[in-house]
């Protein structure tokens, strides 16, 4: 018995010595991903940290995007938050409380925050404090199928194209089981509403879905399915409407739909036609789209905050941003590397450069409420009632407002 104990002590001592001698830090990093190539890209980013700081190893942990936001609070509740947390700008108001403000570290290291796009820097703030450094951002744009446009003899959408041109195209493209457009919510609808000058937030920044302007905008949006019949009816389901729209678009069944530049690589992989990109149509208030993006920050409960800060700087640093842009995973949050995205991911996409530049000229950061994931889920659950004509669009917005603010 005694010899066993002695052996165990010796083993423990050896381990302890080895640990202190090398002072290695193992960081955990939690991030969403939707495909194997994405996982490969993120693991490469983690590797970059180890290359720069050989004593730091970043362990990549991942899950799907919707599950990420379910697991993160559970990890927080069980005291198992990773050292590095990934944060999307729409979720910043709700989840920043799990994270450490970075302002003191940014100031101490004289870290150049000006190299990033200002709107996404702001998007990852809460209460004036910076909670994450961004790796990507982008405006919602309109993806279209160039072949279907050519077959219908329609001119391809260009920056400045109007609502009338959009409707004409949507009607002409809707035939033989194919649809001109696909609706999704809430994000794509918010871009639609903003272009009509309607707001979804009150002046104080609270959720306000029941104002007359937004009700009218939602009624118009729903009419694309119910009255105009240029967009298919999707049932409420476990798949987000934007993913269903993406699937129907890449299958060639829908000619246009609205999504972010982060989808471009996945779209190109699945679609066997040439893809085009245009800004959302000019409506009564202009072509106003919303921008969103994501970044990395440090968990408030991490025991390795200094190492995590070093890692986050590398993960959003020039080398990582160049790699992510060229791999097509991210429209870079660093202004200097946006060109790499245009030159690689978007090189065989019609109109990508002018569409994104035009969209950015009038885009607004997507401002949300702290419970935005609830609002989002409610839209997915209740909007189909309006699309199916079972309830009026106005009533649906009233229900979502009531349930989201109860």
């Amino acid at each position, binding site marked *: 018995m005694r010899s066993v104990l002695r052996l165990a002590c010796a083993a423990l001592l050896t381990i302890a010595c080895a640990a202190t001698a090398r002072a290695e830090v193992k960081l955990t990093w939690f991030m969403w991903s939707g495909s194997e190539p994405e996982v490969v890209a993120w693991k490469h980013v983690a590797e970059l940290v180890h290359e720069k700081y050989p004593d730091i190893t970043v362990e990549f942990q991942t899950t799907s995007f919707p599950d990420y936001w379910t697991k993160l609070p559970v990890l927080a509740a069980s005291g198992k938050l990773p050292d590095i947390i990934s944060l999307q700008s729409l979720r910043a108001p709700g989840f920043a409380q799990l994270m450490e403000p970075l302002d003191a570290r940014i100031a101490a290291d004289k870290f150049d925050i000006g190299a990033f796009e200002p709107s996404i820097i702001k998007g990852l703030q809460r209460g004036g404090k910076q909670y994450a450094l961004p790796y990507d951002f982008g405006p919602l744009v309109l993806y279209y199928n160039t072949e279907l446009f050519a077959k219908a003899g329609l001119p391809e959408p260009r920056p400045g194209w109007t609502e009338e041109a959009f409707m004409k195209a949507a009607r002409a493209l809707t035939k033989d089981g194919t649809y001109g457009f696909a609706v999704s919510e809430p994000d794509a609808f918010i871009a639609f509403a903003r272009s009509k000058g309607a707001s979804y937030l009150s002046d104080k920044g609270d959720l306000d879905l029941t104002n007359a302007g937004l009700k009218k905008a939602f009624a118009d949006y729903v009419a694309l399915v119910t009255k105009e019949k240029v967009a298919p009816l999707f049932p409420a389901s476990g798949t987000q409407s934007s993913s269903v729209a993406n699937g129907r678009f890449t299958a060639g069944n829908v000619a246009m739909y609205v999504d972010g530049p982060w989808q471009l690589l996945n779209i190109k992989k699945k679609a066997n036609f040439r893809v085009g990109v245009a800004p959302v149509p000019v409506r009564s208030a202009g072509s106003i789209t919303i921008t969103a993006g994501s970044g990395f920050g440090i968990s408030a409960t991490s025991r390795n905050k200094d190492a995590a800060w070093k890692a986050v700087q590398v993960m959003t640093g020039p080398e990582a941003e160049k790699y992510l842009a060229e791999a097509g995973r991210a429209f870079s949050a660093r202004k200097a590397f946006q060109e790499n995205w245009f030159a690689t991911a978007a090189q065989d996409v019609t109109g990508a450069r002018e569409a994104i530049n035009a969209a950015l000229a009038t885009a607004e950061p997507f401002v949300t409420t702290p*419970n935005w994931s609830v609002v989002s889920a409610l839209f997915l659950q209740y909007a189909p009632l309006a699309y199916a004509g079972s309830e009026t669009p106005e009533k649906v917005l009233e229900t979502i407002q009531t349930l989201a603010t109860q």
Partner: protein
Amino acid sequence: MASRRRRGDATTAALFLAPGLLGLTLFLLLPLAASLALSFTNWQVMGETSFIGLANYRRLFTADPVFWGVLATTLAYTAEYLVLNIVLALAMAVWISSLPWGRTLFRLVFFLPTFTPLVGVALVWLLMLSPGGVIEWGFAGLGLTVPNIITDPRLALQAIVLVSLWSHFGYNMLLFGAALEAIPATYLDAAAIDGAGAWARFWKIKLPLISPSLFFGTVLTAITSLQTFDQVYALTRGGPGSSTTTLGYAIYNQGFVVYRLGYASSIAWVLFAVIMALTALQLHLQRRWVHYDA
């Protein structure tokens, strides 16, 4: 001497029981107690937590705009699904047991869906039921226009019933089938000689003799259908609107979408109470129709 041995037996028994008891305590009793305690708090995973007494329950019964609808949906689903499941499983079991050949094959075929992952199954059903899907296309081919059951809030629950039936009736069918096989042929032969037709043999002999299995199947099916979650999660996420939101899904939604775990725990305890009440009622009623004296 005798009492010492008895004590020795008791120690041995306790030792043998310990692992099971430990598991039961750790993984059942403790979480149960914890969820009851949670239901009196406003725990939201993130942020401060405080004890709020009965406020969750008060809100559930008086202020929640969807709770009563969700409870009604759950009960309607359970009633419909339970009856259809038992009738279908029994009918299929009787039919298969009457076959001269291929009983094992048919049992296997109808039991297959039971061990198919429901999430995958639900995705396929979703594709078939969606507007423009194969079911709508099939009806259109026959010149029929039928309302789409998954987008119509009045019918969406039927989609859940349909998928649940398809995937789960095989279990009861197997259970009833085994009970039917166990009926001594002499009873049926004697009844046939006395002039009892197939119908009379079913109602007067087979049904009473398999009633313990029927009871077991009914109780278990009622409990699982009250807890229904995965079909709803995979198929409709409670939508359109709240037309397919069951208590099981509402617990998940409040807990892991809205992050109100205290509130979710209070719904879980309401569900627990409903299940207890229904099971107690069934145990009480069984005296009238279940025969254990075969």
